[in-house]
Structures are given as structure tokens and as C-alpha cells.
């Protein structure tokens, strides 16, 4: 007879036995050993009918196809741009995915992206050896000018974005900043310096307090106190070009 030893959304750690018996199936972050399902990384257990998996709570960002990321150009090659994005692996923007502009043969590629430029891109492909292709061509993908980027915990990105982008759009409305959150744990902000600072503080607060219930209310309170005015209900003019990102679960 199969027996489940954990509850939904319980913290699991490597080596912990999650279930006994052949009726349950292992998925991400778990494996089967004889009759047992055992956790293989720190995470939150999710029970999907018979399938047991865990959402990681720690770890570096590993590139995944179709993730929206914020990255930085670190080198210019003959076939495109080498980029880094807060991950153990670097990526490549091929010339054809760099810009909508026509790039003539032998052109100076630094005219389009120079070393040190930041961008919002989409991961188009990840190979078995973790060679990463990035595209900056498409809706909501662009080169970043001005503003600042901050690093946040990759595993807290879904909390910063919130359900259907609710959290980040609240910060946007309150501070009037443009904000883009990359799945890789880099956040880009642009606005009035004082407001930018408040937005960064709010993001840090989300990161630190994401485990305490009632986060949305507390962040709302914090923003209202810092900006000294209630948060506008409707989207401000800055809110149109950002793409709403889905909650990043594996």
C-alpha cells in the first residue's frame, strides 16, 4: 500500500523520504529508490495527483528556453555578441537576432551593441551542453538605456512579479518607475532617483519577507508611507510597454 509522508507545500531537503510505495511517481527534484520517493534538492513539495515534485528554493539561475532575461554584453564576436546574465553559463546573441536593423556585411557590431550594454532578451535555445542562444528581437525585447540594474535572489523572482504581475505593477504605479524583472534575477529600473530608491527598497523588502504572509498588504503600506500618497488604481503612462511575465515555476 502506498503511503504519502509529506504534505502539500512542505519544505523538503535532500535525502528526505517523501512517499513509500509504487503508486507515486517522481518528477523534478525527486527520485525513486526502490519503493521510496526521495527528495534530491531543497524545495517546496508539490503533489500533483500521483506525481511528486519540488520547486527549488535555492540555487543559481540555470537558463531555460523562453525565459525573459536581463543581460549584459561582454564580448563582440564575428557571429554576434557574447552576453552574461547572472548564471554559470554565458549566452550568444547571433547577428540576426540582435536588431531589426539591416546589418551590412563587415559592419562594426559595436554600433548596435557595445561591450557593457544591457538588454532585455529572450532565451531562444539551450543546448545539452548549456550553450545559450538569446534574442533581442521581438515584442518587449530591447536594449536598455539609462536606469539601473539590481541583482535579486533568482528563486524570489516569482514573488517580486506576483500573481499575473500584480506585485511589480503595484510598485510601478506607486513610484512611476519603469521596471523590468528578468527571470535570471536581474531587475532593471528607471525613474526619478528618489522613486527609484523607493522601488529598490520595496524589492529588497519582498525578497526578505516573502515568507511572511500578507506580503502584498505590507508592500502596499510601505510604498504608500514612503511615497506619501495612495497608490493610483489604474496604470500610469509608464506601464504600457512592459510585458507581464508568468509566474516562473519549473
Amino acid at each position, binding site marked *: 500500500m502506498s503511503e504519502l509522508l509529506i504534505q502539500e507545500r512542505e519544505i523538503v531537503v535532500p535525502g528526505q523520504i517523501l512517499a513509500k510505495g509504487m503508486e507515486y511517481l517522481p518528477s523534478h527534484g525527486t527520485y525513486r529508490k526502490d519503493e521510496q520517493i526521495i527528495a534530491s534538492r531543497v524545495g517546496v513539495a508539490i503533489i500533483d495527483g500521483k506525481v511528486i515534485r519540488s520547486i527549488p528554493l*535555492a540555487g543559481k539561475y540555470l537558463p531555460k528556453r523562453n525565459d525573459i532575461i536581463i543581460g549584459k554584453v561582454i564580448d563582440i564576436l564575428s557571429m554576434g555578441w557574447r552576453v552574461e546574465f547572472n548564471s554559470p553559463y554565458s549566452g550568444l546573441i547571433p547577428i540576426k537576432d540582435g536588431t531589426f536593423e539591416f546589418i551590412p556585411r563587415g559592419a562594426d557590431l559595436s554600433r548596435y551593441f557595445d561591450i557593457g550594454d544591457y538588454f532585455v532578451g529572450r532565451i531562444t535555445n539551450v543546448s545539452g551542453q*548549456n550553450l545559450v542562444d538569446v534574442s533581442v528581437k521581438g515584442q518587449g525585447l530591447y536594449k536598455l538605456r539609462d536606469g539601473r540594474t539590481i541583482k535579486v535572489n533568482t528563486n524570489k523572482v516569482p514573488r517580486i512579479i506576483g500573481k499575473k504581475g500584480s506585485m511589480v505593477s503595484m510598485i510601478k504605479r506607486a513610484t512611476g518607475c519603469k521596471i523590468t524583472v528578468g527571470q535570471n534575477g536581474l531587475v532593471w529600473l528607471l525613474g526619478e532617483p528618489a522613486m527609484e530608491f523607493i522601488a529598490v527598497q520595496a524589492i529588497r523588502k519582498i525578497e526578505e519577507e516573502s515568507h*511572511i504572509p500578507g506580503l502584498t498588504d505590507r508592500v502596499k503600506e510601505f510604498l504608500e508611507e514612503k511615497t506619501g500618497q495612495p497608490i493610483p488604481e489604474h496604470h500610469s503612462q509608464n506601464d504600457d510597454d512592459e510585458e507581464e511575465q508568468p509566474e516562473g515555476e519549473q
Partner: protein
Amino acid sequence: MQYKKRYDGRGHDETRPIIAKAGVLQNADGSAYFKIGETIAYAAVYGPREMYPRRLADPKRGVLRVNYNMMPFSGPGERNRPGPNRRAKEISMVSEKALLPAVDLEKYPNCVIDVFIELPQTDAGSRCAGICAASIALADAGITMQDMVPAIAVGYVGDTPVVDLSYDEEQPEGMEAVDVPVALIPSTGEITLLQMDGIVDAEQLNTLLEKAKDACAVIAQKQREALQEKYLGDADEE
């Protein structure tokens, strides 16, 4: 000669008091603190990250690199010279091999996971404490692992088998001592570290390994509790 009562008064199968904590260092990707008796180990994990120099990278799987370091005034004996020495290099190597079978490196080709084990205070069993701390730190860094890797020293003082020898018990007066550090993977029972100082026969060794297995199950539980404590609360949804 019989060794009836232990110097510090604990039972023969009893380890020294253990304190384990996860996530104690801010700048590391994963970190842990492991205290057993008077031996204290800190472990910091950095990575997976790009391997430099590049020629050391393995295109098939990630590389685990462990560094064990005992601080100059950590031991009960003489000050030891800081920096790597023959002993530290050996222990770095065996610690690496003790952790390797538990860690899944297939996901990180061309990368390295660096583990730094620092011992600010030692009283025997430092390599075991280091391995215990390192495995908590690896899990804390979000690395996929088959299981935690607990480690403990077992041995004989005189004719008495004991668990977790202290510094005094390693050199008892008027008696022979045997010191066997053991690390294992609890879920498979695979032994990943087995060294020996002293002389025992096969039967005695088996007795020791049985004792080590029981002690390791207890330690593994402490390691998991340390991790759970750190991440407690992270599970709650809005």
C-alpha cells in the same frame, strides 16, 4: 585494558553534542556551520560557476573542488602553520571523494562547484565535521544531491568500541587507540569515506561500521533539520 567510562562521561555509542545551521554566510551561494563537541566547521559553497583555468573544466559534467583548512590556533596542540600542507591536501581530497557520489554534477557541464571548509576550532573529528558542514552547504546552494552525507569517527579505545572519539581518546594513556573516520550516504548505505589509524581485524571493523551507520543516521537527521529550519516559512503562499 578496559575503557569503561569515557573521559567526558558520555555513552559509548553517543556522539558529542551537535549543533548544525544552514545559511550562515551572506556572500556564499550556500553555507553551513557544524559543531560537534569542541570541533567547529564552517563550509562555504560557491557555484556552480565558470571554471578557471578553462583547461580544468570537464565538458561532460561539473567538477567538485573541496578545500579543507584548519586555522593556525584551532587545535589543542601546537600552532600549525597556516596554508595548505600535506595533511590538509589529503583531507581536501578525501572530503571531495566523500561528497562526490552524492552530488549530481551532470547538470553543470564545464562548471565548478567550490567548497571551502574552514575549521576555527578543532578537537578531533575535523574531517568528519567538515564533510557534514559541506553537505549541508551544498544542499543550501540548491545543488541536486542524492542524500546528505553524514560523517563520524568511530574507533577503539583499549578494547572498547566507541563513537566520535575526542582528542584525548585518540591518544589514551596506557592504551592503544583505533580511529576510523567514516562517511556514508544513508539512503543507499554506500560508504564514501573510510580511513583507519591503528590496527583492527575484520570482525572489529564490522562492529565499528555498524556503529557508524547508526550514528550517521542521527547526524543526517540533524543536517536535514538545519536546512528545514533555514527555509521554514518560504513555503507559504500569499
